[in-house]
């Protein structure tokens, strides 16, 4: 069961701009096991979305390049595959759901057309069969009256329903890995809960692994088995969800969890993290969190800390943590 399906090693994706190099993803390593949900959490600009796009090899135009590292999908480094081979991989072996369903669906094609197109990538089949499979795909994502929905267009559906359709398209090719980049951020809370439950059920049924990108620790607690916390282009802590919530080791993770307003317990002043993340164009040589860290000492500014094993499957990049 602990078979690794996706192994990311020392990934570097930088933006090469006229005014300098933005090191948005700068040495990211993690692995994803078959049937596991790994959360990738962090604040805006920490590089979590760009990590996802690097895995899909769908980097934004304008100077972004993956310059170093390996992305091993079932042991094969997909960074070395040709663009044509990559098109075969996307959708069938690794797939993605984005935050805003509106941008993933084409407004001028019906839901049925878009589903049939996705299914055609899995296998060549006559149209009636594809239509039948589209109905099934919609039923799996719990859309009522799927036969009627096939003829409809995206604007005729609510946000929650569109996101389900996007999900249906993403998993149509039966990928081994699904990357979900903030898929519920645009949804209302009750609809978010429905969607997360659905995603979890589909994951259990299909055994696909999910890389779940979010900034919301509530979503992490609900969905993930393990979580990786990103800060300024690197993963600073990674471990089982329970451990990260109950005994976070990295000062950044600790401060981040403490600053979330809670639904229970005393209402006092919220813990804050003073200052701002470092510029990705001018990263410090030492720990990237040092300038905001209440526990920082001279060596934190001098060199980037090594990755310390702080518990079972639990690592943190910090000079101050105690090895297990």
């Amino acid at each position: 069961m602990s078979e690794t399906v996706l192994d990311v090693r020392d990934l570097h994706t930088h933006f090469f701009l006229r005014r300098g190099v933005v090191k948005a993803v700068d040495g990211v390593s993690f692995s994803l096991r078959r049937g596991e949900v790994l959360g990738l959490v962090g604040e805006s600009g920490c590089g979590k979305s760009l990590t996802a796009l690097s895995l899909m090899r769908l980097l934004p135009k304008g100077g972004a390049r993956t310059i170093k590292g390996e992305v091993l999908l079932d042991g094969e480094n997909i960074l070395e595959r040709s663009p044509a081979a990559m098109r075969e991989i996307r959708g069938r072996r690794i797939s993605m759901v984005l935050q805003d369903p509106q941008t993933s669906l084409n407004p001028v094609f019906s839901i049925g057309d878009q589903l049939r197109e996705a299914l055609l990538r899995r296998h060549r089949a006559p149209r009636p069969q594809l239509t039948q499979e589209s109905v099934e795909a919609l039923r799996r994502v719990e859309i009522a009256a799927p036969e009627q929905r096939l003829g409809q267009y995206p604007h005729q559906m609510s946000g929650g329903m569109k996101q389900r359709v996007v999900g249906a398209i993403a998993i149509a090719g039966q990928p081994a890995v699904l990357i979900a980049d903030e898929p519920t951020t645009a949804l209302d809370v009750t609809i978010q809960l429905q969607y997360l439950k659905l995603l979890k059920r589909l994951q259990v049924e299909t055994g696909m692994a999910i890389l779940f990108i979010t900034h919301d620790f509530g979503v992490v607690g609900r969905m993930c088995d393990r979580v990786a916390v990103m800060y300024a282009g690197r993963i600073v802590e990674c471990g089982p969800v329970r451990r990260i919530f109950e005994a976070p080791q990295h000062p950044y993770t600790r401060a981040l969890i403490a600053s979330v307003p809670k639904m229970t317990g005393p209402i006092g002043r919220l813990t804050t993290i003073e200052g701002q993340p470092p510029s990705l164009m001018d990263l410090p040589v030492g720990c990237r969190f040092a300038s905001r860290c209440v526990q920082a000492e001279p060596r934190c500014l001098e060199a980037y800390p090594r990755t310390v094993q702080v518990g079972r499957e639990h690592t943190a990049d910090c000079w101050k943590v105690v090895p297990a």
Partner: protein
Amino acid sequence: MNAPLLRVENLRKHFALTKGVLFTRTLGHIKAVDDVSFEIRAGETLGLVGESGCGKTTTSRMILNLEEPTEGRILLEGEPISGLQGEALAVYRAKVQAVFQDPWSSLNPRMKVGRTIAEALIVNRWGDRAKIAARVRELLLQVGLRPEQAEQYPHEFSGGQRQRVALAAALASRPRLIVLDEPVSALDVSIRAQMMNLLKDIQAEDGVAYLLVAHDLATVRHMADYTVVMYLGRIVEQAPTASLFAEVRHPYTKALFSAVLMAEPGRQADEIELRGEVPSPLDPPAACRFHTRCPYAMPQCAEVEPPLREVSRGHAVACHLFE
């Protein structure tokens, strides 16, 4: 108890849905806000929660005098605000300010932020140049920025700092009430906490009241003294925040609470998952608007509209289960 700063009485807002340009036909009315009443006391925070389309933004827009109510009235310090014009309207706008979710929308990208903050003071001929400059410095310090940042443009600030600038601009005219429409939901977690602390500090210093429009219950719990829960244009439950969080009554509020994903794994309480989606406000369900999705619905829920009834001190619920 002090007299309310703002009273909202039986407020309704119906938008006509029309078709055609020349020969316009009315297809129906969207009852965005339907019989909503509440009070905000000076120096207190009222949280207005609900999902998209519940009418919370329309309610706040009517309070900001950006939208004319179809029925009902709004009183600030006992004076109705409808029909305010000229000088009286300017006075009202100085007393009731707003901060929106996206600070970009409130800041002019070509204007130095000092000038944006001073705008309200200049328009109201608040004082001479030196006096206004001094007030801008004071405001920047109050929101945790440096006075010399008055000379910078919005793009030179981070998202959290821009929201601070928007807050400084709102505070300039010393308002009695600030409508905060999702003030922290666009901000990062660590910055969000800074902003929430700042808002509470300013309230403690200046005694300004807040109408906090938000969807995040934990934010409301930390900020609001009183909470109003809306569903499809109606208030379904309202209570002092402490009382609401101690005991949630209305099935919809319960569903909202159980949809909150706790940042504590394994702490998920008894869950009510709502089936389906919010019905169209164009054709809302008759009687109790929640009965189509309510797990406790009874026959009478589809027939008789449940009135908002007080179940304990200050805690009112619109549900037949509490009769």
